[in-house]
């Protein structure tokens, strides 16, 4: 069973069998503009919810990507290093950032589902 959740910092996390794939949303990539660089975490790193895990850079801005939940980094997307533009073209698919082995799956309950995120975005307008 797969669960898709969103954070107020515009990260998404898709969880399957205890492994969460994390990326940034279409809204986030649009706000950042053309990405030129992505810094990914090293494997095995323990991260805590809300902690800085990755960095994305456009020409004029640098932003942190936060861990949506606690866990251990088990994979990073190798494609982003050479082609950060994938995040712009396919943010919720090929443009994923890293995968976490969740240590506190219950934290997912407090995150937004797709509908809640949509209304959250409407509230930002």
């Amino acid at each position: 069973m797969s669960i898709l959740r969103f954070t107020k910092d515009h990260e998404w996390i898709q969880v399957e069998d205890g492994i969460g794939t994390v990326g940034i949303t279409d809204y986030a990539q649009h706000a950042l503009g053309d990405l030129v660089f992505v810094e990914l975490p090293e494997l095995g790193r323990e991260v805590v919810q809300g902690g800085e895990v990755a960095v994305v850079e456009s020409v004029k801005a640098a932003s942190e990507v936060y861990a949506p939940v606690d866990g251990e980094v088990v994979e990073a997307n190798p494609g982003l290093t050479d082609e950060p533009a994938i995040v712009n073209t396919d943010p919720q698919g090929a443009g994923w950032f890293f995968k976490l082995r969740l240590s506190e799956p219950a934290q997912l309950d407090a995150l937004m589902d797709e509908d809640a995120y949509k209304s959250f975005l409407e509230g930002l307008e």
Partner: protein
Amino acid sequence: MNSQTTAKDAPAIEPAGTSPATPLGTISGNRGLRIEEPLIFEQDSPGHCGVDLPEPPALALRLGGVAPRGRIGLPGLAEPTVVRHYTRLSRNNYAIDAGFYPLGSCTMKHNPRINEKLARLPGFADLHPLQPLSTVQGALELIDTLAHWLKTLTGMPAVAMSPAAGAHGELCGMMAIRAALDHRADRPRKRVLVPESAHGTNPATAAALGFTVDTIPADARGRVDLDAFKAKLGDPATTDVAAIMLTNPNTCGLFETDIIAIAEAIHQAGAFFYCDGANFNAIVGRVRPADLGVDVMHINLHKTFSTPHGGGGPGSGPVVFSEALAPFIPLPSVVHDRDGFHLVETNDDDGATGLAFGRMKAFHGQMGMFVRALAYAMSHGADGLFQASSDAVLNANYLLARLGSDYSTPFEGPCMHEVLFDDRSLKGSGVTTLDIAKALIDEGYHPMTVYFPLVVHGAMLIEPTETETRAALDQFIAVMKGLAERAKSGHADYFHAAPTLTPRRRLDETAAARKPVLRWKAN
């Protein structure tokens, strides 16, 4: 990528219709005075040399076994080629000498040429920093004289002359604060309060020195929110705040009205007041920072004291200190007694405070900039500086008065030496601050500072300086009004295409950053 996309080998034909006079485009790709110029590396004429040097005497090398190097890969060019190359490059630059350069926060004022002449006197330019002091008394006297000017104009008792630029001066000032706090050792003090409107160098400096940056919001008047500041400062008896770094006048072009209250609260808490002096030009000769409670402030000689900006330096950033911080200055410093001028180069030297924190660069400071700055200060005199800051403020307020109905102003009241607008008034036109800036380029102006300070969305920060004529300001006003009108009457495409009349049009910064090409390489 090492493509020769310019004209050297295969001249690019201009697209038809770019200029009514030459509908076919030119054969060369040049456009009259505008001449395409390849890199020096693409003009290599092997064996050529632009400097005639004698044949070295035939002596055995004494390199201690290290091999002499092979080919480096530098191009060979004769002197006329080099002169033409750099002359052509220069013509692709905008400059104060050529026009109005209202780049906010940078004080792009006229650069007097007497400064250049005097800095090149062999008695300054041809002095080695480690000559015996008996042979450099005039140089030390000059540094001491400029130091006297800076101390008097700020009302501060001590000055460190060695910092090489404003950001270097910030490091110097914050190091002195750290040294003083360490010396006092009352309690750990980690936090530095920085308004969100600050220059990026402020938080970068504080963080580099291990302080935690705590951001203070601005209030609706564009000043430090006094209540938020007091809340962040906390209990004066226990606070861990080390300092506040405050730009005054601030980056919104406004004088911090609560500055004395802020200084008093900071001092009551045992912390220090760092003032970023980037905007000193608004008040030099009129207000002494010491009278505002400032403990330490850097002065950008390349802003307030007219030393040239040189395409990005060299600058010079002397730092003035209050009595409390005066012992904690860096090395070296100049002192004098009846025997003449001396350099304090160690904490054991005569005249040393014993508490100086160390050295910030090689040698004694930016001597070439000191000569220029002193020439400027002496030319104006105390009365001229009073008039200069008055005129700088007058010019900015004149722009505010004349353009205030065309562009929105985020804050009320008179400004200091720079005026801040934003692009709310253009809402719905499809034209933003960036587009106004690019359209100004086609009009023959250097744009204002855009998107800074960060606290104002779509910021346009305009600093006219005191060295502009009223006629020049009136022309600029007419252009700004015309652009606002054009934007509001539905010509967004015109703005988005701008600039079109420049040596290059908008450049692809995304491509540059994705696959950085930072040097030329032979094919």
